[in-house]
């Protein structure tokens, strides 16, 4: 009985909570982006090696961080759903995937435009770049697989297995620059040592990374709300909520 209550009450309780939180995350994302862009272009100095081309770092690195982090969070939700049979978990995983794919694409795109003027090539098949491309395919595969299975329970289960298998790729991306000879340079910022960046450059990057976090939370919450409405459309509370929303609009 309690587990039934747990299963069915969760999306219903979560829906209004998410609705209240979303505007705050949009505001935070906007403010942090503006602050980050200001530091990126008007405070951070030029780089001694790369000149102004290095300013791509302020979107490339936050996007790359988010692409990996969101994948782990997505797989975590998917795994939780597989283990506990909670319905909200699968919806959360579905809600995160498009944003994760978007950041992966941005990381690859900005990386290509950064690689051309600095390395001399838009693309090389080194371990870092290749594993990040694999990450994009994992995201797209996850989205395609879920949309191909009409039954949401089975779709969640199949998606969860794909997401969990793909988690192996994340440490490969992160450590590729240490494990193998790659054209891609090592990490400038890591937990184990002081960052090898000027402090204002680092500040700009961290502000942009925080903005990306807030943006991801806002988009994921927005998306999970529409998924809840879609999947629970036969539930009484969804019908009532929809009527209320229509009345408000």
């Amino acid at each position, binding site marked *: 009985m309690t587990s039934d209550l747990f299963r069915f009450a969760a999306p219903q309780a979560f829906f209004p909570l998410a609705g209240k939180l979303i505007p705050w995350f949009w505001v935070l994302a906007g403010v942090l982006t503006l602050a980050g862009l200001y530091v990126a272009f008007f405070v951070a100095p030029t780089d001694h090696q790369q000149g102004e081309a290095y300013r791509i770092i302020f979107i490339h690195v936050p996007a790359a961080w988010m692409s990996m982090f969101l994948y782990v969070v997505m797989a975590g939700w998917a795994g939780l759903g597989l*283990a506990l049979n909670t319905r909200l978990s699968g919806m959360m995983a579905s809600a995160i995937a498009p944003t994760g794919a978007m950041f992966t694409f941005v990381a690859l795109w900005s990386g290509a435009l950064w690689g051309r003027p*600095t390395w*001399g090539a838009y693309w090389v098949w080194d371990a870092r770049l290749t594993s990040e491309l694999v990450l994009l395919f994992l995201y797209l595969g996850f989205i395609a697989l879920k949309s191909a299975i009409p039954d949401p329970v089975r779709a969640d289960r199949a998606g969860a297995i794909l997401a*969990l298998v793909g988690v192996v790729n994340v440490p490969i991306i992160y450590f590729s620059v240490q494990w193998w*000879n790659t054209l891609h*340079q*090592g990490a400038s910022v890591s937990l184990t040592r002081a960052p090898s960046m000027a402090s204002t450059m680092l500040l700009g990057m961290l502000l942009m990374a925080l903005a990306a976090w807030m943006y991801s939370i806002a988009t994921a919450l927005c998306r999970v709300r529409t998924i809840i409405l879609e999947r629970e459309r036969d539930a009484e509370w969804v019908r009532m909520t929809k009527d209320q929303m229509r009345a408000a609009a």
Partner: protein
Amino acid sequence: MKPRHQRMIAIAAGLALIAIAAALVLNAFQGNVVFFFSPSQVAAKEAPVDRTFRVGGMVEKGSLKRRADGLTVDFVVTDTAKSIPVVYSGILPDLFKEGKGVVAQGKLGPDGAFHASEVLAKHDENYMPPEAAHALSTAEAEKAAKSVIAPGGAR
């Protein structure tokens, strides 16, 4: 045991198996994942001789020479232990500099030189304003000068 716990154990076991499989596969492909070989590896005959491969290292200071045709350049790639001469005709990337990282793709010629068809610059992960870089290199030069005058002197 509850079915929920059984499922969790099954998922954990599955994940562990996948991780082990991935580690084995990566280990098997170790040689192919390597983007470039160092001059020491080339000297130790670890690099493929008759096939195209990449050499990576530092451009030795003072080794860059431009030939009379204005397009062909000679330089030496070193990893401080071993070095290898490289011949290349084409446009060098902006960040190509003596004393900086480079990755060249090509073949080892019969003359012992590496004939490159593509040259990429490999920059490091340090970002700083030019003034800071200048101060750093000046300090290093001073330190080097001091150690020449008084080797192992007071710190």
